[in-house]
């Protein structure tokens, strides 16, 4: 520490206020308010009343909410699984000396920096069921082409594909960073002990990556629960949610209830459920860090 005595409050506040104002008004206060509003039937007007847990009861009893929650969980499971597996696989490959390594690293990470709206529009063209290049190719090969975004059973799958396409490179970069922290001498020691490639991966790489792996899974789950842009753009905008509501994820339901129907109380209750999920995942990450993660290998 720079000095032993505390800095004067005026100086501290002058440095702190620029970020603190935004934090208090637009992050912390809304978190608290979400709980409060969720207990009312607030609809934007001056007259509203306390309804207790009514919104939550209504949500858990409604098909729309249960459907949204189920879809979000399915989306989360598949995207997280593929993002982590592909991210890990390509990190391991591109951590070795391969030709064009910088090109491949850059290319695989690239979609992550692009607008999800532009990406969504591009894939709408590619997955166009009738005239899109993909289905024309499938037809040419004699394969019966799926309806992709227009199909009740394929719409969510298509969104999953696009999401994985756009973001597995992010996890690859995280894992590449993690691989740098593993002590090289551990590999040499393992090799001297006669450990094969699989054994080395299980005993050195995986334990060494465990903090990053754990962090990545946490981030990936939280991000998957936030999915919205792709659903909005690719399956029909404000009135959308896909064929037969097949892509009406949780945030989309919050958006529709809050901003199309102005049921702020009900949408706030749905937000509280989302906050609860985030809290539980973060808590597990926090506790699990100490229990399941190996730090001593680093």
């Amino acid at each position, binding site marked *: *520490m*720079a000095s032993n005595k*505390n*800095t004067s409050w005026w*100086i*501290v506040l002058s*440095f*702190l206020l620029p*970020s*603190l*104002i*935004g*934090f208090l008004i637009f*992050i*912390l*206060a*809304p978190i608290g*308010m*979400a709980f409060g*509003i969720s207990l009312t039937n607030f609809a934007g007007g001056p007259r509203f009343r306390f309804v207790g847990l009514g919104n939550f009861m209504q949500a858990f009893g409604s098909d729309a909410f249960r459907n949204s929650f189920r879809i979000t969980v399915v989306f989360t499971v598949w995207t997280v699984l593929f993002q982590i597996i592909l991210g890990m696989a390509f990190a391991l*490959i591109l951590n070795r000396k391969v*030709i*064009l390594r910088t090109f491949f690293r*850059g290319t*695989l990470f*690239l979609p992550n*920096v*692009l*607008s*999800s*709206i*532009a*990406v*969504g*529009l*591009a894939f709408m*063209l*590619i997955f166009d069921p009738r005239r899109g*290049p993909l289905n*024309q190719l499938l037809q040419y090969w004699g394969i019966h082409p799926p309806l992709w975004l227009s199909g009740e059973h394929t719409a969510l799958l298509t969104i999953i594909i696009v999401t994985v396409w756009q973001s597995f*490179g992010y996890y690859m*970069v*995280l894992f590449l*960073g*993690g691989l740098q922290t593993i002590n090289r001498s551990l590999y040499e020691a393992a090799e001297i002990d006669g450990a094969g490639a699989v054994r080395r991966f299980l005993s050195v790489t995986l334990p060494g990556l465990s903090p*990053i792996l754990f962090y*990545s899974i946490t981030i990936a789950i939280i991000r998957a629960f*936030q999915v*919205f842009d792709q659903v*909005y753009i690719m399956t029909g905008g404000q009135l959308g949610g896909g064929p037969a509501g097949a892509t009406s994820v949780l*945030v989309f339901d919050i*958006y529709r209830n*809050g901003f199309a129907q102005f049921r702020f109380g009900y*949408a*706030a209750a749905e*937000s509280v459920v*989302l*906050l609860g999920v*985030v809290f539980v995942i*973060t808590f597990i990450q926090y506790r699990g860090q100490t229990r399941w993660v190996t730090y001593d290998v680093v």
Partner: protein
Amino acid sequence: MMSFRVRILRWVGKLSLYASLFFTAFLILMPLIVVVSTAFKPDDQIYEFPMRIIPRTPTLDNFVKLAQNFPRYIWNSCKLTLWIVVVQLVTASTGAYAFSKLRWKGRDFLFLLYILSMMVPIQAIIIPQFLIVRHVGLYDSHWALVLTGSFTAFGTFLIKQYFMTIPDSYIEAARIDGASEYAIFLRIMIPLAKPVLATQVIFSFRYFWNDFFAPLIYLTSQHLKTLPLGMADFATETYTYVGPQMAASFISILPVMLIFLFAQRYFVEGVAAVGVKG
């Protein structure tokens, strides 16, 4: 001497490794090539099969069709992104200084709150945040986006980590010479922290240039809309605008791609910094 079988196996392994790398790179780049090539195709060539990468008769028609609304959207996006990047740079660096080089009660606790807020998705607090913004009369204005975007836990964390690597002895010496905290911050810390400030600038640029959710909530007037918002309007209208859609996508992707090409290091460093240290 390696046996013949082992050598064959190695060779097959290497071949499949490169095959998977090139195939994946193809899958990543193909949609982007489709965007660029379709942007310059006349309507009747867009769905041709087999698809041509180089348009037979390249045209700027698709861009001309954007001329009515999109210059405004692009201008709004540029203006807003620039504002938010500057504001975030100020809030994040001053905050980082308070958390790394000043001593005060409750510092570690408040920093923990900042870090924890990184986990809270904007979508989970959008209802109350929107009500606050509407209550203070900033709904449907660019101010709504600048103010709600002013705080960045990520940026504060990123810059704080960097400030901590700058030895306290530099600052002590300046304090003994009678320099104020503001002078130390502006003349010592900021110049030393240029690389991490670049990372922060690139991160917030990328985020707000692409941001869709907050503008969707806060902007309704046609003349205030940003580029992603304008593109979304397009998509929900009808399928006949595919050419102009791709032209708009091209415009939206181009600046980020160019910056990525020349400053890939900063993008990657930002991701890795949070991952490894967080």
